């Protein structure tokens, strides 16, 4: 099914808005893109889906002139169009909305929109024109943003609209969005998709890059699947299913739904009472958190990133300090003193898979076996004598863990940075779970992790629960919370907005809670 020739909504007689022919790109020995061909019909939404490292971002970078392809050509509106730099991409009518916005934080919306597309040396005229154009676009596509607001005062959803406006102001006909919903609440995401559909109906062509199957199914007309640098299939969305797409992405059958028996909660393991945390600027990040987790239970914390979830994990994990009460198995934990550090927490039986594994979970330049020992390097089985560590023992232990957790490649001497995101996460999860903790803290366990590894990591978390342990799961992926958690608490602005049971709630209700609409009103 290599270079498929499915035209979207329109007849195949019209030239494609964009067509890639045999694009290849290698970075040293790594073939990031191998002979990629796609055709995207004008006025359609085309999804590109694939695991991390499948080559989606490389392909889009080639389209936007960041990289030069080793081979192949780009055809726009039936014309071969070389794209050596971003300038040419813009001229060819391509607009890009990056995953990490390219906005100047202390500029106004207007200034950001005209940056690089000014008319003449004096700004006043460009600003006046942009103000008019923005007002028109806002009316046409629900893209309303205050043109004089500073970017830093805008919500993430609005910032994304500014990025779209930037592209439209440059008269982009082809809009590429790279993982656009990662930072949005469900309501914001719905709004975005409404905007995209509106744009499509006006004849714009949209390429949506994502790893979320649900978004592909709901919004796209056609979808291409990438796996390990190749385009494995292009299909009509209406004629496929999430299961089929997942299988195409991974190359084998995947269980999308986590298989788990109902929880059988036992005694209370963790009790948190009125927990408050201030950050270094003195801003209160946790404003009185109360929660309990029992043995054999997974408590999922849902919420948009930045509403205090990180701080909660940090206090529980002994990285940050706080005020309030935390009891583990009935014993009160030290929150400010000598025993409030990570080492003491581990000794107490709390293991922590941190949100950002590359910063807190691993030392990227160190080898896998060294990373496997971190935090537990005082463990008696790793010591040769009072002064010397038993490196052979650690390496052997690492090999064993790599086998159990299917880390690939299973080479203990490889530096952490040389593993893929999923395998890095498996190393961290292996280190923490294998200590058999009473309470496991997990933050964003599957961020940047491919589907195959997600399935595996989820199974491990459920297995730990079934072994009668307590799990606190923090994730911004609502799907993950819904399928994994036995109870869901939603955080907003440093508070718990409400608790729900996964089978008695829905995404809409949780989305409202995530946006700060209180439980009673929802």
């Amino acid at each position, binding site marked *: 099914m290599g270079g498929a020739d499915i035209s979207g909504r329109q007849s195949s007689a019209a030239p494609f808005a964009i067509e890639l022919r045999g694009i290849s790109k290698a970075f040293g020995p790594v073939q990031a893109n191998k002979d990629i061909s796609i055709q995207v019909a004008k006025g359609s939404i085309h999804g590109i889906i694939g695991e991390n490292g499948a080559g989606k*971002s*490389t392909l889009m*970078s080639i389209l*936007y002139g*960041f*990289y030069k392809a080793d081979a192949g050509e780009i055809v726009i509106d039936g014309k071969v169009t070389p794209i050596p*730099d*971003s*300038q040419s*991409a*813009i001229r060819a009518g391509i607009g*890009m909305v*990056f995953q*990490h916005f*390219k*906005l*100047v*934080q*202390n*500029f106004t919306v207007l*200034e*950001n929109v*005209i*940056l*690089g*597309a*000014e008319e*003449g*040396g*004096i*700004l*006043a005229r*460009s600003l006046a024109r942009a103000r008019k154009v923005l007002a028109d676009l806002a009316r046409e596509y629900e893209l309303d943003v205050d043109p004089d607001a500073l970017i830093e005062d805008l919500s993430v959803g609005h910032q994304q609209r500014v990025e779209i406006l*930037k592209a439209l102001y440059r008269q982009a006909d082809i809009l590429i969005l790279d993982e656009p919903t990662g930072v949005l609440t469900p309501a914001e995401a719905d709004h975005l998709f409404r905007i995209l559909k509106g744009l499509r109906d006006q004849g714009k062509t949209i390429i949506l890059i994502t790893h979320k199957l649900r978004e592909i199914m709901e919004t796209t007309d056609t979808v291409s699947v990438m796996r390990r640098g190749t385009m494995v299939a292009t299909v009509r969305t209406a004629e496929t299913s999430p299961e089929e797409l997942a299988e195409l992405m991974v190359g084998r059958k995947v269980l999308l739904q986590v298989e788990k028996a109902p929880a059988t909660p036992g005694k209370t393991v963790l009790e948190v009472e009125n927990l408050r945390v201030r950050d270094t600027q003195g801003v209160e990040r946790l404003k009185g958190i109360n929660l309990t987790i029992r043995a054999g239970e997974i408590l999922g914390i849902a919420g948009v990133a930045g509403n205090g979830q990180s701080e909660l994990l940090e206090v529980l994990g002994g990285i940050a300090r706080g005020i309030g009460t935390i009891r583990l198995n009935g014993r009160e934990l030290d929150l400010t003193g000598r025993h409030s550090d990570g080492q003491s927490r581990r000794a107490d039986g709390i293991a922590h898979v941190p949100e950002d594994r590359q910063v807190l979970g691993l030392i990227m330049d160190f080898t896998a076996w060294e990373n496997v020992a971190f935090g537990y390097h005082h463990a008696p089985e790793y010591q040769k004598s009072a002064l010397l560590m038993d490196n052979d023992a650690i390496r052997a232990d690492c090999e064993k863990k790599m086998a159990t957790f299917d880390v690939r490649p299973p080479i203990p001497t490889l530096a952490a940075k040389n593993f893929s995101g999923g395998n890095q996460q498996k190393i961290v999860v292996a280190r923490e779970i294998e200590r058999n903790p009473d309470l496991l803290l997990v933050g964003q366990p599957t961020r940047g992790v491919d589907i195959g590894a997600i399935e595996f990591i989820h199974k491990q978390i459920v297995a730990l629960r079934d072994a009668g342990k307590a799990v606190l799961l923090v994730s911004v992926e609502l799907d993950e919370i819904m399928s994994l958690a036995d109870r869901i608490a939603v955080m907003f602005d440093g508070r718990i907005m409400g608790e729900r049971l996964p089978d008695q709630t829905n995404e809409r209700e949780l989305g409202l809670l995530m946006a700060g609409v209180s439980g009673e009103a929802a």
Partner: protein
Amino acid sequence: MDFATIIQILDSTVRLATPLLLACLAGLYSERSGVFDIGLEGKMLIAAFASAAAAAATGSVWLGLLAGIFASLMLAGLHGLASITFRGNQLISGVAINFLASGLTVLLGQKWFGLGGRTPSLEGAARFEPITLPFAGSIAPVPVLGPIYSELISGHSILVYVAIALVPASAWLLYRTRFGLRLRAVGENPAAVDTAGVSVTGIRYAAVAITGILCGLAGAYLSTALAAGFGREMTAGKGFIALAALIFAKWRPWYALAACMLFGLLEAVSIRYQSIDLGFVMIPVQFTQALPYILTVVILAGFIGKAVPPRAGGEPYVKER
């Protein structure tokens, strides 16, 4: 303290603040584009030397000014090469430039003139002379306004007026033009400029070149207007005080004018009075001399509002993917 004394102190404030203001505006362009520059001092020094040397050799202060700007531009180019093209550490490059200027000026000065690093005294057309503004003589007898106009406003060298004119000019350039928008953007988020199809490198080089030219003016002013010739290490830390003023000014042109005038006033007062008798306590001169530095520490400690530097300052731009 009578009125005439106040006018005299303010007059010398303007003269002493001018090199600070030129250097401060110089730093403003570079740092607003994301290139930190602690080499203002070195660029001023080499410009002061080159101006005085060329003016002494040719007898023309204008050729001297050109030579000063050229010398300063060379060092600015070096800083640009190190920190923009080769993505080196901007602080280290700046330090190197300061050392280079300090050594080079003395070495060349001794070699060419044999006066222990000094250049010959400049006079006549080899110096910037004070300019008397129109009607200065006829308005002088008018009470209050007369002395203010004829002594404070009139009677400075052309570079003083240029420096002051550069304040509104810079504000206009930064906030009202395309170049200014891109310059500010490149210091805040170069990726935004890059993805908009504009060259980050080009804008940063342009900013660094402006810095070079302004430092050239500052240096030339020191040796051909304020003094009559170059003396070794004659910048005496002015480049660093200008940096402090830049932070105090929150990287804004009008604030820079105010900050430099304040520092100029402190210097003028400390030169005029050996010690200040407040009646109940004597303020020693060392205290007034130290005031700019004390002020800087107070500013940096964040007591007077928060100075937020350009967000991408000090970091070479590397494409993300």
